[in-house]
């Protein structure tokens, strides 16, 4: 409360501010609601900072421009919302294949197809399972607040450079469009980032080639095995989550992003009704790598688990992978741009006697 100089800013703008502060040199995007505040912010601020902003002719063009900028060693970012992110998948697969660092922001909206402009979490599968073709993964960070939208985006640039891999910021129409008063906090963890000797135009003595095409016998397999070793390393090092586990909790709500915020309201509401802290909350902050072990540990003392999502059960599958048949797993979800209400989730919990 004593902190001064809070800045009132939307989540989308906070992502843009983070990109500027993290030294993003190249941004290409194509407008789509509900992430337009980000493109608009970048159009003004990138130019002011003497960096490159391009409003591309399409999402496809934007992601491929990012490929080019990343290949030349620049910190590069693109952003869109669900239908636009689908269009970018080919480029993301190429980025992963060519081991290029890039940050891709998805402020999710209702789907499938063009859907609507309401908030949604229905792109979980797409983000965490690769999305495009081939055996690859992208690191996926899911901010729960405007402040985290800032911090995670700064972090995303470091992670992308450190592992030479695309990193996805998975927000939604709520986190993107809402405004809060925040303090800009850089991420606490520092990565040692060597100069990009692999980039085009920076070769010392030999030739640098950036590609994802490997036609020689077993060459592609070797490349894939290298990628897989990298993914295993990320799974060991980059798991992030947050949990609140009151002693007397009998129910654990698992929710990420904006739904984590709703889960907090639900816990308070039920505490008032039952006169005790009967609800714990587990919030994955990295969706890939997913905090499987931590979630299994968090569930040790509770009786029931409730997965809360703005989808019809996508993260639910990871929760099942984490817990197996250890605990009864319930699910509450709404999608199509609609947001679950505290009252209806509380009724569901009480009706099924989860606490």
């Amino acid at each position, binding site marked *: *409360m004593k902190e001064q100089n*809070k800045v009132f800013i939307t989540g989308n703008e906070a992502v843009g501010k983070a990109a500027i502060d993290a030294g993003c040199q190249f941004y290409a995007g194509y407008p789509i609601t509900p992430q337009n505040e980000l493109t608009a912010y970048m159009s003004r601020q990138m130019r002011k900072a003497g960096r490159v902003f391009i409003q591309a002719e399409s999402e496809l063009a934007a992601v491929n421009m990012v490929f080019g900028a990343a290949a030349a060693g620049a910190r590069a970012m693109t952003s869109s919302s669900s239908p636009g992110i689908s269009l970018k998948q080919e480029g993301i697969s190429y980025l992963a294949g060519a081991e290029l660092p890039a940050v891709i922001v998805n402020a999710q909206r209702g789907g499938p197809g063009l859907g609507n*402009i309401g908030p949604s979490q229905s792109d979980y599968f797409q983000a965490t399972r690769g999305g495009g073709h081939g055996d690859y993964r992208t690191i996926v960070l899911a901010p729960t607040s405007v402040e985290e939208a800032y911090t995670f985006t700064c972090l995303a640039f470091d992670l992308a450079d450190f592992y030479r891999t695309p990193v996805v910021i998975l927000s939604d129409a*709520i986190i993107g469009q*809402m405004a*809060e*008063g925040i303090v800009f906090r850089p991420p606490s963890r520092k990565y040692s980032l060597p100069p990009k000797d692999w980039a085009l135009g920076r070769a010392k003595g030999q030739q640098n080639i950036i590609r994802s095409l490997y036609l020689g016998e077993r060459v592609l397999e070797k490349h894939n095995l290298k990628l897989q070793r990298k993914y295993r390393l990320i799974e060991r090092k980059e798991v992030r989550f947050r949990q609140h586990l009151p002693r007397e909790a009998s129910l654990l709500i698992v929710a990420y992003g904006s739904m984590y*915020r709703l889960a*907090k309201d639900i816990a308070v509401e039920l505490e008032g009704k039952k006169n005790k802290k009967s609800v714990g909350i587990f919030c994955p902050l990295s969706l890939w790598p997913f905090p499987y072990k931590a979630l299994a540990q968090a569930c040790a003392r509770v009786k029931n688990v409730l997965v809360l999502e703005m989808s019809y059960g996508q993260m639910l599958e990871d929760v099942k992978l984490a817990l197996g048949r250890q605990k009864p797993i319930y699910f509450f979800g709404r999608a199509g741009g609609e947001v679950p*209400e505290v009252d209806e989730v509380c009724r569901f919990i009480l009706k099924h006697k989860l606490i």
Partner: protein
Amino acid sequence: MKLEFIIAGFGGQGILSLGKIIARAGIKENKFASFMPSYGAEMRGGTANCKVIISSQEIASPYINHPDVLIVFNQPSWDKFRPKLKRQSLVLLNSSLAGFSPSYRIKVIACPFTRVARELGMEKAANMIVLGRLWREIKFVKELTLKETIEEYFSSRRDIVSKNLEALARGKEL
């Protein structure tokens, strides 16, 4: 202290600006504030609403189930959000564009805000007239804070700062 506002009307009526000013005023007094807009793809003519929370404690969800204050600028908004009211809710209703039955059990302040604004020659400042009227009812921040927030919010256009402050003052007298 926690106050939850829903503000709703047509796009172009200053719905989102009003919400942002309330939230910024809260932050200026070191409170927590959240602002959650919801609008159609169009800038003007469509429906727009925003949810604003000011609290002395950290805010969980920016969504609101039952608002403490509902500000409605038109009939569709009144129809949409009326079922969300609780008995203690306060309603500010723009009677220029929305009607209501006086037998209602909830406290409704009905004022022809649009007409008053038009009479002052600044129809676009109807939102500041509402803000003035709201502040007379609930002093959620100091008056000075409110004025400073308005000055900062419109700082890129000095000419309209004084008009908006005038509208705020007019609202307090209604």
